[in-house]
């Protein structure tokens, strides 16, 4: 038996609904239809009245989740695509994220963002929004890269008393499989060494972890051992694990599917430059998507974002520095 990343998300929601009567799911087409990606397949049947279709109103979806959380519920909001969360952005960053700081009222909501690109999806169904949310105090931003993390981090997200932006990657939904659901979980806030290596450190997250792993496999054949750090959550960001890896390798490349200005890759390099400058044997490097909207055609899309091939070229550059 095997389980996909998408099924893990569905199973985590089923378990959360089963174990906690305060949990409900609200989003477009999530009810009888089971969601645009089937992340809530059959849940409306299994949990009557707790998996609710919303109008196409992201602002009101998030606003009502905040109100329900104030009244003690633990809503899970499904954005149909991460891109559409911009319509609910005001409620997320100004209402949900400020509520606890301003009023000492906890706001336990989870907002699921089907994130990142897939071939043919184009500018408005492909975005990676994590850095945008991470800049706001009061939000936790999870970016699971594995089936195990998709399951356990979503369960943890529902238990956390603060708003969680859960960036699940659409490319991994059906591509990524595991043997079984995990029985143990790493806590959020801890990064994971996805592959050990001595020559260079690649820090990344979400779908890019798999491009980086494919790159490391390839370079290993040539005798280069690259260490891959999977951040798991970008906020909080586990600076210690990154620094420890850079201490072992002396070289750092950060990779992200998001756009280059600011963001996670810049943040990681800033922290290493400030706290681990003397651990570096060479100037660090960044690799991000190109500075254009996400293109529609697979030929363009495949070049717009980093891939195992372009990450390998970057690592070779890094090793020559």
């Amino acid at each position, binding site marked *: 038996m095997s389980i996909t990343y998408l099924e893990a998300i569905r199973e985590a929601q089923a378990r959360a609904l089963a174990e906690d009567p305060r949990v409900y799911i609200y989003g477009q087409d999530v009810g009888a239809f089971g969601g645009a990606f089937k992340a809530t397949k059959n849940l409306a049947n299994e949990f009557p009245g707790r998996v609710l279709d919303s109008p196409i109103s992201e602002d009101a979806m998030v606003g009502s989740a905040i109100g329900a959380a104030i009244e003690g519920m633990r809503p899970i909001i499904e954005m149909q695509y991460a891109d559409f969360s911009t319509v609910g952005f005001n409620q997320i960053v100004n209402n949900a994220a*400020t509520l606890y700081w301003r009023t000492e009222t*906890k706001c336990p909501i989870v907002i699921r963002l089907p994130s990142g690109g897939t071939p043919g999806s184009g500018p408005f169904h492909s975005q990676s929004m994590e850095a945008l949310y991470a800049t706001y105090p009061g939000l936790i931003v999870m970016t699971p890269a594995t089936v195990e993390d998709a399951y356990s981090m979503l369960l943890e997200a529902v238990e956390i008393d603060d708003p969680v932006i859960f960036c699940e990657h659409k490319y991994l939904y059906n591509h990524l499989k595991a043997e079984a659901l995990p029985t143990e979980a790493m806590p959020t806030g801890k990064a994971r060494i996805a592959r050990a290596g001595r020559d260079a450190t690649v820090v990344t997250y979400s779908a890019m972890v798999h491009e980086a792993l494919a790159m490391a496999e390839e370079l290993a054949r040539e005798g280069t051992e690259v260490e891959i750090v999977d951040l798991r959550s970008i906020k909080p960001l586990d600076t210690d694990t990154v620094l420890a890896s850079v201490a072992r390798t002396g070289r750092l490349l950060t990779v992200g599917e998001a756009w280059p200005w600011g963001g996670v890759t810049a943040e990681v390099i800033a922290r290493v430059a400030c706290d681990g400058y003397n651990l570096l044997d060479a100037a660090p490097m960044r690799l991000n998507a190109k500075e254009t909207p996400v293109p529609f055609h697979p030929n363009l899309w495949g070049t717009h974002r980093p891939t195992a091939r372009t990450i390998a070229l970057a690592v070779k550059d890094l090793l020559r520095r």
Partner: protein
Amino acid sequence: MLQTASRPGPDKLAATAPGSDPMMRERYLTAYRWMLLARLSEEKYANLYRAGKIYGGVFIGKGQEAISVATAMALHKGDTFAPLIRDQAGRLAFGESLLDSTRTYLGSKLGPMRGRDGNVHRGKPREGCMAMISHLGAMISVVSGTLIAKRAKGETGFIGAVSLGDGGTSTGAFHEALNQAAVEKLPLVVVVTNNQYAYSTPISSQYACENLAERAVGYGIEGYTLDRGNDLAQCLDVIGNAADRARAGHGPQLVVASILRLGGHGEHDPAEYVSDELKLSKTGADCLRLAEQFIRDESLATAAELDRWRANAVQQIEEAVATAQREPKPDPDKEDWCALSTRRLGDGYGAGCH
């Protein structure tokens, strides 16, 4: 369903009355006293602002007290209320203490916002009084969420009320939330105070329909025009009726009350853009003065009682200000600089607190 208030104006009220019914008389006088406390307290805040004793702005509800108090008095314990910037009367009537209001303006550490937010952004969400954000229309769906939760928990008999201005009706959040509340058939009362201006923008630049209450038809909800928002009896009647309808299961209610904002957007704004013609119109009449006149004309209270109430309000205000001024201010060295309740997940890297 769109209805226009049929209740006559104050000049014709004698026959129908608060005066002829002891319960209505009591309700009218209670409302009047909240309005008086609201007016006098906000005048005090405005004076403190001009004396440089208040951080940030002061935004007062002068002229809108009747609508505000009627909204709050239609609510019961356990209901949800989302006041906006001109709801001092409603806040007090809903149960906010004058001291907490004063503390927030004066930046006391002991106030509900502890110096982290100020003036009209105060609230106690767990006690049903939402703490507004500045983005208009945003609190409607939050109130809806509290109603959805109560329904899910099996509670009955509750409603929620949201206060809004004419400017707020132009936002996407307003549209999304009214449509959502209609789809969910929530017991929600949205009270729009059409005070003729959003900051300096006249309603002619704000909307193009004849009457904002007509929008209710488009949402499939019940709508009411409250044409004399400075008539306390009409406010109590129309808003109270809308609240009763919501509580009885008739779904969301939209009340649009017309009035003139008797002042600027905030105390920094002399509002020179408001015409004398509008100020002298019936819309521009002061609700507090009309209510007081009605009380005298109908002998609902004696002159001595009116004087005593005013003196009592002034005393409460002086005490609240004196208390709040003695209280500690927030201390940046003792402040808890973590925006999360889950402290272990805080990430303050680069903020000097790691």
